């Protein structure tokens, strides 16, 4: 009977479609991964990277680094004498201190800025001046300052001098 045969043929075809769609469900797995990779979304293996979108690349400000030790037997100087930064950019510079005395000494750094009103635009995130520093006899130490220059810095200021002065914390000796 030809109707019977036709029915069976249609059944076979539709059954193949059903089986193929079962496979399609599984094919969605690599497909999904490929789409995500191609679009760069949802990549679980990669660590998140943070991009700073607040940098004003149209301006450059020169930060001049200065260091003084006030009556302190320390050799204190910046590793580089100046850096050029864009406002909004996170920057780290280092200072080096050598204690030349034969005993431990505790000191406290105090920053100052030139011009003075640049201070409010100079945001220090991390600084050795936040805490007292104790150096053992003859110790050499490198210490960081991490800062951002506020993009609101007035256009008239093209360079900022960052000057640190270390004072001995009297009576502390090496004890912190």
């Amino acid at each position, binding site marked *: 009977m030809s109707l019977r045969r036709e*029915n069976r043929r249609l059944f076979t075809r539709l059954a193949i*479609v059903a089986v193929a*769609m079962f496979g399609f469900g599984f094919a969605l797995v690599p497909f999904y991964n490929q789409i995500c990779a191609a679009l760069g979304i949802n990549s*679980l293996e990669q660590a998140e990277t943070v991009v700073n979108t607040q940098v004003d690349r149209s301006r450059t400000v020169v930060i001049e680094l200065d260091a003084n030790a006030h009556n302190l037997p320390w050799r204190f100087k910046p590793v580089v004498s100046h850096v050029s930064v864009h406002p909004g950019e996170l920057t780290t510079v280092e200072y080096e201190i050598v204690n030349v005395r034969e005993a431990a000494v505790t000191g406290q750094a105090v920053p100052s800025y030139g011009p003075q009103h640049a201070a409010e635009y100079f945001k220090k995130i991390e600084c050795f001046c936040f805490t007292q520093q104790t150096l053992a006899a003859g110790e050499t130490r490198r210490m960081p300052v991490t800062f951002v220059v506020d993009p609101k810095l007035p256009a008239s200021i093209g360079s900022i001098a960052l000057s640190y002065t270390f004072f001995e914390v009297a009576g502390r000796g090496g004890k912190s």
Partner: protein
Amino acid sequence: MSAVADTHGHAHGAAHSHGHHGGYGGIMRWITTTNHKDIGTMYLWFSFIMFSIGGLMAVVIRLELFSPGLQLVDPDFFNQMTTMHGLIMVFGAIMPVFVGFANWLIPMQIGAPDMAFARLNNWSFWLLPFAATLLVLSFFMPGGAPGVGWTMYAPLTVQMGMGMDLTIFAVHILGMSSILGSINIITTILNMRAPGMTLMRMPLFCWTWLITAYLLVATMPVLAGAVTMTLTDRHFGTTFFNAAGGGDPVLYQHIFWFFGHPEVYIIALPGFGVISQVIPAFSRKPLFGYASMVYATSAIAILSFIVWAHHMYTVGMPVTGQLFFMYATTLIAVPTGVKVFNWVTTMWKGSLTFETPMLFAVGFLFMFTLGGFTGLVLALVPVDIQLHDTYYVVAHFHYVMVAGALFAAFAGIYFWLPKWTGRMYNETLGKIHFWLTMIFFNMVFFVQHFLGLAGMPRRIPDYPLMFETWNKISSLGAFGMGLTQLLFLYVVVKCIRSGEPAAQLPWEGADSLEWTHLPTPAPYHSFETPPVVK
């Protein structure tokens, strides 16, 4: 289809038809039957039983939500109730009820003696009680039934107890049943039509089912794949959805909704078909824009494959993706609008009467359109991000599932009950059933729009005091709506047992083959000689 050669004797009445049941009587008749009408009847009763079970679960949910705080059930059981209510209503009640319609009506409407694969048809049905048993059994497993939501999202499904495995197997079996049933329907419609019954002459109910069946064949296997992946993640060390092993829980949502959105139309389209039979009959006019209805239905089916991610705007997809799915989703409003306009235009200047089937059809028209509009609201990304997983969503999909699909099923049952049983239901009680259902339905769900807009999340058994009034109204409506369905059962049983004998053509506007070419009630075997449709 007006002038048709009548090749079938009307002498076979109800009294004779019982002689054709085959070799078995009693329960064995129903277990072994290959008759499309018997199988259709079993589908309809099965779905009513599941509708009652799912309805009871809804009542438990609404009892708990009657007052703020936790009083009746613990949150875990509440989650099991929402999960099982959804699964049972979608897979156990709404889908089978329309397969029941398909079994009863498609062979009669296209002039075929039975379905193409009669024995397979029997098996498609008898898979369902086993699946339903598995679902119900999951309540008695350690840890109870899964409380993961009907969408069965990973990673929760990977962590559930043994009840989850039973649910996964139940979904497999339900899917198998749907696929086999759909292949049967497609084959019947494509190969078994009577001479002269071209595709574009078929009643629209057959068209909507043909398209629905294709959707089922294309998407049920994808759901089967998704739950199979969940199963292997649970027991066989794969990590499809486990981020610790390089998988991704969001992937599950993509696969699920690739099935899930066409599923929405699998539920809705046969209801559209029923409405497209009922409205012309009670307007005494042919359906307006038949061809555009066919094309609109096809367009909805095709578009349904490219909108799935509108269910998951909040997973963190790129804006381009959100825009694509938003535009595609709003595009679906066009063919759906075509259908609504065609139904309204069919009624325009018709000789309208409002018997129960027509009341449900008009109720469908109003409520489904409202549900469609809230769907458009939810399709918009900025709005959806606010309303995602709130009661606004619950209200929206109950307007399209209950007032859409369920109202259409009620309309169809009242419409064809005389043809199936040879008896008329009580018209007054039918109208009371409609009006109570309509009022209580809106009492349950209309206020849930307000709750959702005010920020009440779904699937939570407790809520702040400010939501109490609307929740009380909603719960009272739910109890009323549940009780009203007992009236429906009474009307149907009374009709079967002691209804007035139905006229040969109880609805004067009905014009498809089962009305014009077969006696009422329809004989056990119909169209053994195909009619010639001119």
